[in-house]
């Protein structure tokens, strides 16, 4: 036991001190943040804020109405032109305007201009629809105000008109459930699980191959049992994965909430706080995180022991590794293909069974859990899934250990899966 701890310690410390660990741990959330902020920034930057002069011949467009319309967003798009019209029309671009509109004299509050109601925006450059849209909205807002004034609808009447009802889902069993937050958390958990299983699984594989090809394995197995060496490596790397996850998970909640706040119309502090609360109350975060830790470790043991078996069978050639590990990578990827269907309907038989069967349960169960325990995922399903996964990883580590102890000392030709299975079941 003492020796396994030594091995775990070495695996954990050498990996966690590596520059690549520190870089990937920091870089991953930064990249994620950068992606969100970058795209928002670019979207913001590329949006054309047109500056448009209004030449009003009808006399209906008042400066205060324009001011109200301009307040719809941060860009002051519209300006009522009061100076000499001809001069403005000739030199609007040098005056700092992108274009101008002329409201004709025959503009009526009831019908507008004519049946087509087209106002021409005169420009000297071509602008996209995205740039035109806010201006169009504002013009309509102004017209709306003109119509209200003419119909005698004051702010009190307007408030009455504005009253609406909203439809909100109320799950009788779980008042806090929120499908949107649940799918986001389910998606993020499932994907994170996938990343960790694949990335750290292949680290186990490469670590084992490295020990084999360096021939250090032969030195070490003269001091410890091959199984101890394998399990020590798996646990050590599993702890690295867990450490990285715990660092990430704290980042991800921040990122998620920040990005959600970014998506909102108004970017202020209260909505950030609101959305954080929203996520934390709609999903039992403690349950999700503790289940994640369980499925991360159990799923990791399940898959990484298989990766270790492959690592012990191959030699220096990484192509051998790819061809042998492909079936296992495919198993992990299969769960990712199911993810979309599971999020759409977390109660479907497909979702239920995929979350119980060991090879897909680490990812699929983590997709389902945010939808609610015990409502979406009854306790028996969670319990059965966990039990089967524990049984599953006990089998795979036993199986892998049998292959490992033969493979680690076997040099030469790459064995086939059939041969490896024979090693496992030989005495």
């Amino acid at each position, binding site marked *: 036991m003492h*020796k396994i701890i*030594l*091995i775990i310690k*070495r695996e954990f410390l*050498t990996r966690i001190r590596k520059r690549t660990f520190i870089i990937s741990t920091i870089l991953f959330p930064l990249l994620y943040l950068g992606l969100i902020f970058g795209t928002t920034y670019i979207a913001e930057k590329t949006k054309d804020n047109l500056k448009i002069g209004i030449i009003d011949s009808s006399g209906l467009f008042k400066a205060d109405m324009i001011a109200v319309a301009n307040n719809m967003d941060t860009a002051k798009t519209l300006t009522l032109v009061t100076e000499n019209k001809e001069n403005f029309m000739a030199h609007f671009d040098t005056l700092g305007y992108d274009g101008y509109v002329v409201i004709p004299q025959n503009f009526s509050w009831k019908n507008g201009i004519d049946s087509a109601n087209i106002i021409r925006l005169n420009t000297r450059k071509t602008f996209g629809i995205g740039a035109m849209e806010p201006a169009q909205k504002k013009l309509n807002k102004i017209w709306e105000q003109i119509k209200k004034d003419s119909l005698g609808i004051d702010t009190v009447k307007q408030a009455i008109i504005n009253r609406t009802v909203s439809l909100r889902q109320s799950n009788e069993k779980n008042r806090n459930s929120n499908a949107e937050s649940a799918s986001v958390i389910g998606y993020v958990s499932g994907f994170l699980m996938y990343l960790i299983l694949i990335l750290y699984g292949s680290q186990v594989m490469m670590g084992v191959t490295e*020990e084999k090809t*360096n*021939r*250090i*394995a*032969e*030195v*070490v*197995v*003269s*001091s*410890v*049992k091959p199984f101890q060496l394998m399990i020590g490596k798996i646990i050590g790397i599993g702890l690295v994965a867990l450490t990285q996850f715990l660092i990430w998970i704290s980042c991800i909640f921040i990122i998620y909430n920040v990005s959600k706040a970014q998506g909102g119309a108004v970017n202020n502090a209260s909505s950030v706080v609101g959305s954080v609360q929203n996520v934390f109350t709609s999903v039992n975060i403690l349950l999700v995180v503790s289940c994640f830790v369980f499925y991360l470790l159990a799923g990791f043991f399940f898959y990484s022991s298989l990766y270790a078996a492959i690592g012990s069978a191959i030699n220096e050639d990484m192509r051998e590794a790819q061809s042998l590990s492909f079936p296992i990578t495919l198993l992990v990827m299969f769960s990712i293909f199911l993810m979309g269907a599971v999020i759409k309907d977390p109660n479907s038989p497909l979702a239920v069974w995929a979350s119980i069967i060991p090879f897909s349960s680490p990812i699929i169960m983590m997709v389902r859990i945010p939808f609610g325990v015990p409502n979406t995922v009854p306790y028996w399903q969670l319990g059965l899934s966990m039990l089967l996964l524990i049984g599953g990883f006990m089998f795979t580590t036993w199986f892998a250990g049998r292959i490992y102890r033969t493979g680690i*000392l076997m040099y030469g030709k790459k064995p086939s899966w059939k041969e490896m299975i024979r090693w496992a079941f*030989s005495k």
Partner: protein
Amino acid sequence: MNILELQHLKKYFATQKAVDDISMVIPKGNIFGLLGPNGAGKTTLIRMITGIFYPDSGSITLKGKAFDPENDARLIGYMPEERGLYKKMKIGEQALYLAQLKGLKKAEAIVKIRDWFKRLEMESWWNKKVEDLSKGMGQKLQFVITVLHEPDLIILDEPFSGLDPVNANLIKDEIYRLAQNGTSIIFSTHRMEQVEEICNNIVLVNKGKKILDGSVAEVKQGFKENLFSIQIENIPDQITANIFDVVEKKEQQIIVKIREGYKPNDVLSHFINNGSSIIAFNEILPSLNDIFIRLVEGTPTARQFEKTTL
């Protein structure tokens, strides 16, 4: 006292009988040569002694008790033929880690590592990585790691390959020193001149079986062909005697094979009576290399002799 006793060890693999009923005894403080051609079963035998493989049948007794791989790791030091170290790990940490795996306490291990590093002039290596070392330096480090925990039995598989003569001598001296302090050493190699130089006892294995066992001197005696070299002034053109046959004739030296029933003294008397003046007379013993090749090739001794006389 015997450090290691092997009784009827067997290990069969699907395709071959890797070790087929081998028994041997290694005394305390003995440098023991384990010889055999490639694929003879040496590595399998060593792996059973180091606890990497379990024998199919037979028993291993270490220091008078049944060998328990899990708890006896500290009693054995093993240096495999293909050297193995973590390339990216710092040398000091690596030595410490492997020593702790053998069962040494951390503080104890540090003292021993410093001691060995000092003796073999490796003190500056502590914070270097293995990938920064040359092949010979790596070899030296591997040797230190093998013997660091002061095992009672050290198994060295081709310890001198890749070492320059200076470092080879350094390691050789360490091996002698360890043996003098009571450590038994199993020395597996193909280099027969090294075996003759270093080993007290040898065992030759071939095709999973032991075909020769004994001290180096005994083995050589056992395979001697009664060959003697005689140096005389003025070798006569015709030498005829019923005491011996002339095997080879050089300018000042003849090599003779004494016939059965006669003694070296008879040869000497023959030449003395002839009036030849003898400068030197000595027995020619076969080299281990010759014995090795003869046994492994399975060529009958008689036929080989015929070939040389013709």
